[in-house]
């Protein structure tokens, strides 16, 4: 089966995120005074052939631990859904 997988990678809580801080300051200066904490992460979208959604998730988890995320500084979150059959959108 074909799956569409999304991996959200974010700086670990408590770790200084200079990009997030810069974006937060910029937003406040653009007159969005309610902006609090901002964290900037990364989104990886991939298509994956696997036997089941669980297998796809498990394989993506290994990808994250090996390459996509650095567990010293980042957390990750995986979403898996079946790919739309060809011809549909």
């Amino acid at each position, binding site marked *: 089966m074909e799956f569409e997988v999304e991996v959200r990678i974010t*700086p670990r809580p408590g*770790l*200084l995120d*200079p*990009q997030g801080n*810069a974006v937060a300051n910029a937003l406040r200066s653009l007159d969005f005074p309610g902006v609090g904490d901002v964290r900037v992460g990364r989104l990886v979208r991939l298509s994956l052939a696997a036997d089941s959604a669980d297998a796809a998730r498990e394989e993506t988890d290994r990808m994250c631990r090996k*390459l996509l995320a*650095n567990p*010293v*500084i980042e957390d990750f979150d995986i979403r898996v859904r079946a790919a739309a059959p060809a011809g549909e959108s």
Partner: protein
Amino acid sequence: MRVAVVTFPGSNCDYDCYRAAREVLDADTYYVWHRQHDLLKPDLVILPGGFSYGDYLRAGAIARFSPIMREVMEFAAAGGLILGICNGFQVLCEAGLLPGALVRNASLQFRGEDVFMRVENATTIFTTAYAPGQVLRVPIAHGEGNFVADVDTLAALDDTGQVVFRYVDAAGDATPEANPNGSMLNIAGIVNGGGNVLGLMPHPERAVDALLGSTDGRGVFESIKSAIAGIAR
């Protein structure tokens, strides 16, 4: 003495390292391309600075899986000497040969300038040519040199003398102002538990000749030279 300089696509300090190894170490120095599978029996492996694989994903994250890295890991495990400078330090952290990680500079700016760093441990293989506490002037050139690690790792590094270099001001004080990238505890360079793998963000290979503005980096290479001569005897 034999020195292997590993080059990845995007390495740009490889010739500086090559030249420092040849001139200061007087070593038989050669490049090893990242796709090769043989380090050709070196006494020292240098992972040079640069932007391997365009720093895609994270600095050093993809280089860490280059074919040659398997041999580098085995060389390290066997006690071989490895010097990782700038991007090389990032690769060593990504590979797990050194603890912690290097993230975006706190200023968000790429910093290319001379800094001062203090020799925190003059007993490592890489620092015996220096006096304890000696202050060195060396260049940096990086956007992601902000060293981070969890609290326990940080304490362990500090307690066991694995923090080899710290950013300081000209007077030798580790102030926040002297820290060019936000590194925890002003850490500029660390050594692994075995003492055979050193990673640092500043560039000692760019400070080996008066013509370059400083000779303070020579000590790293001179220390390595003495260590290898000692092993050979």
